[in-house]
């Protein structure tokens, strides 16, 4: 297992290098001259040329790429025009917010979706199955921002149970940042009130974000469970007296989960980059909202930073999935 893990981690390096090349290339290929943009509309040719030299943009591409990469490693991710702060500083604030949202949303999707898929398959073509299939189809079909709006209407406007948006009340003092996850930080600070507040803010956006992975995981789990239940080892287990419950929740579940795991990894990465809509609807101060604002103002450095960090996290999550796959499926370790 250790050798398998090391091999997987080593494979990460070329992916990250490739990612940095792509991000760098896109920034150079995009229309619009960043120097002109930075110098302002009234700048003369000489001013632009001197700024270009100052920024190092007159040097060969390879040199530029090298200084970009070494800058990344040293924590220099450029400056945001909009926030007037280093991108790295911005990401340190916004990224944990998005991660918290995505982690909780995926947590909900996995915790509900996998058992729902198992039960759905166990009751194939009976009412629990029909119910879960109809709900899953609905959750997949409804657009996330629409679900978000409906939830806001019901839970925030009518029932007034949950706040309309945001991550924490502006008037309250958040717990000291340790992990950047407000819920965790509140727990670390032993502040029950803050935890409850953070949770209430988190509930709706996390739920809205979780619905489509939840539905997909349910359907994947159902299909792979049905497939696993036709396997010979299930007949052998039945022939030797094991109970249906043990066969389903132990022997079939583990086999079915390994197929579903791939989807979970993909969805995780997809959610990281796809929180834009939900963050906009719920005014959640995360990377998605940051990126949207950066796009609107042609603010390149934050965009490159967000792309890079989302790409890196995507590959990292898939590494975790690969490792989990190795845990579940012993054969994969030797492949």
């Amino acid at each position, binding site marked *: 297992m250790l050798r398998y893990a090391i091999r997987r981690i080593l494979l990460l390096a070329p992916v990250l290098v490739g990612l940095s090349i792509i991000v760098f290339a896109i920034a150079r290929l995009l229309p619009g001259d960043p120097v002109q943009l930075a110098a302002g509309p009234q700048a003369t040719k000489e001013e632009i040329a001197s700024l270009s030299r100052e920024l190092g943009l007159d040097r060969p591409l390879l040199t530029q790429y090298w200084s970009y990469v070494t800058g990344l490693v040293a924590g220099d991710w450029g400056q945001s025009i909009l926030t007037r702060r280093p991108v790295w500083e911005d990401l340190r604030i916004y990224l944990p917010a998005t991660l918290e949202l995505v982690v909780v949303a995926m947590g909900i999707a996995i915790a509900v979706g996998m058992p729902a898929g198992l039960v759905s398959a166990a009751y194939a073509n009976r009412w629990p199955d029909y119910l879960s299939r109809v709900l899953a189809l609905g959750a997949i079909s409804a657009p996330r921002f629409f679900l978000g709006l409906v939830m806001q209407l019901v839970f925030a406007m009518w029932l007034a149970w949950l706040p309309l948006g945001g991550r924490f009340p502006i008037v309250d003092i958040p717990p000291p940042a340790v992990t950047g996850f407000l819920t965790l930080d509140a727990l670390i600070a032993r502040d029950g009130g803050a935890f409850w507040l953070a949770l209430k803010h988190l509930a709706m956006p996390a739920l809205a974000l979780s619905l489509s992975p939840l539905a997909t995981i349910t359907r994947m789990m159902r299909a792979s469970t049905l497939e696993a239940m036709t*396997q*010979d*080892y299930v*007949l*052998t*287990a*039945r*022939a*030797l*007296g*094991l*109970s249906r419950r*043990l066969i389903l929740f*132990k*022997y079939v579940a*583990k*086999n079915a989960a*390994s197929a579903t795991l791939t989807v979970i990894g993909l969805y995780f990465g997809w959610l990281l980059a796809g929180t834009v809509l939900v963050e906009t609807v719920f005014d959640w101060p995360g990377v998605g909202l940051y990126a949207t604002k950066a796009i609107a103002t042609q603010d390149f450095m934050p965009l490159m930073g967000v792309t890079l960090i989302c790409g890196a996290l995507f590959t990292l999550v898939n590494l975790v999935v690969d490792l989990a796959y190795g845990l*579940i*499926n*012993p*054969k994969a370790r030797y492949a």
Partner: protein
Amino acid sequence: MALVEIENLHLAIRAFEGEAQVLAGVDLAIERGEIWGLVGETGCGKSLTGLSISRLVSSPPARYPKGAIRFDGRDILAADEAEMRKLRGRRIGMIFQDPTTNLNPAFRVGEQMIDVALHAARVDASVLGLDAKASARARRAAARALAVRLLERVGVARAAERVDDYPHQFSGGMRQRVLIAMALIGKPDLLIADEPTTALDVSVQAQILKLLHELAREQGLAILLITHNLGVVAQIASHVAVMYAGRVVERGAARAVLKAPAHPYTQALIASLPRAGAARGSLVGIPGVVPNLFSPPAGCRFAPRCPLAVARCGEAPPLEAAGAAREVACWRAERAA
């Protein structure tokens, strides 16, 4: 009273085209310590007979319109799932054809064996040699020790280490040994082995058959060996039953049946075995095709392909004694020994 008694068993399975009469008169009686070979070609119902003893044929779509199965005096066809589970794994062990797919790839072999042992011990605490009040941990430890002992018994070298291996770390023959150990961990009285050697190469086949033979002798285990391979039967079976299109057409002592088959189908089956040294192009088949089970012929189901068929064959022949050690269902069979 025999350990297993199957009398005139009928089994019908509903399908899109109608209801297939897949079993139409299976008669078997297996005593402790006997090895019965159940032979016949693909689709004759031999596997369904084996699965029926453990009630593993899902009904619906299947139903048992006629006949009886008794295991140690118990009426199997009237038993519910809970009663059957008490027999499965404990009194009746089963192994199947393909050892690569019958072990769960995601679990260590020991884990799978332990679960079977724990199940058997819930039915009968003596399986683990502990009293019913033993702690879960003690029972698990005993189950594991039993798994190691059984792996040793079926010839898995370094069993104490290999018990923690995954199925893909074993060869095909070794996996079948693991499955045999798993089927025997509940100390069953009957082992149903459905084509246990078909997926293995010939030298491994012989080892597995030898192992089954030894186990039957040592433990007084009855074995129902389901196979299409008469050679396998000749190697280890004490008795043989020949099935054709859902019926037992001939049964008796293996030596008698194989040496001097009385039923025309058994004769044809034995004549069609390829022999070493025979002339090129001398392969013999059985002319005609297996009957359609949705509308089987009335009377003897082999009659349409039988060279000896007469008018009377339109009426089903009963399974009757032909000599001391055999019974045959054929109007034309020699009744004298």
